[in-house]
């Protein structure tokens, strides 16, 4: 498992190649990329996003989410890359890659990782538009998405 927080953009193909080189146990690779849209949540044209995070806790929390994913699905490997700082429309924000013997575990684990990342990893987005900068409000649909994975 690798969790990486970085300012620079990443390349999906390069990341997957590095993760899978020399590997023959994974029959399924699922990737999810979150990309910066050209519109703010209000619909206004977006100049950029700025991502703030809580250094130290971010890495620990993503590690906890990954541990939970590995306890629930049989995964060969997991990669989470999340950018911070200023991100332009069209640029990648987040990457989740899951490797498993079969597709079901890889698909489900990738979705779980993203749902939990969105609601519990300490990142905050600020939208930059012609009107200035605004903090993005959390969406209840994201809470609902994470909630469906809860189990006692």
């Amino acid at each position, binding site marked *: 498992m690798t969790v990486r927080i970085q300012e620079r953009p990443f390349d999906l193909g390069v990341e997957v190649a590095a993760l899978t080189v020399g590997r023959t146990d994974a029959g399924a690779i699922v990737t999810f990329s*979150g990309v910066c849209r050209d519109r703010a949540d209000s619909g206004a044209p977006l100049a950029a996003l700025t*991502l*703030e*995070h*809580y250094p*130290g*806790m971010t890495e*620990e*929390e993503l590690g906890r989410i990954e541990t939970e994913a590995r306890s629930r699905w049989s995964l060969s490997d997991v990669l989470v890359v*999340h950018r911070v700082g200023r991100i332009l429309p069209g640029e990648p*924000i*987040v990457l989740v890659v899951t490797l498993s013997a079969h597709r079901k575990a890889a698909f489900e684990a990738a979705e779980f990782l*993203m749902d939990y*990342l*969105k*609601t*519990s*990893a*300490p*990142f*905050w*987005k*600020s939208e930059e538009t012609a009107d200035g900068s605004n*903090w*993005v*409000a*959390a969406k209840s649909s*994201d809470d609902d998405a994470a909630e469906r994975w809860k189990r006692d």
Partner: protein
Amino acid sequence: MKLKYFAWVRERVGRSEEDAELPSGVATVADLIGWLKGRGPEYAHAFEADAAIRAAIDRRHVRQDASVAGASEVAFFPPMTGG
């Protein structure tokens, strides 16, 4: 104890972190928020929607009824919006 603030909580408080000596009687995260609100208008503004504020103790999410006893770092922030 180190206090940390992020996103709009940080902007409203006007600083990203500070050291604080908590008075006796501040037992929980909710108590700590109540004490901070009395420290000045910037804190009152930052914590006015106090039910919406999330907290972490020593880099783990906690509820506002969590005890702050023994904590070395308490962070306050809005609901997260990464991904």
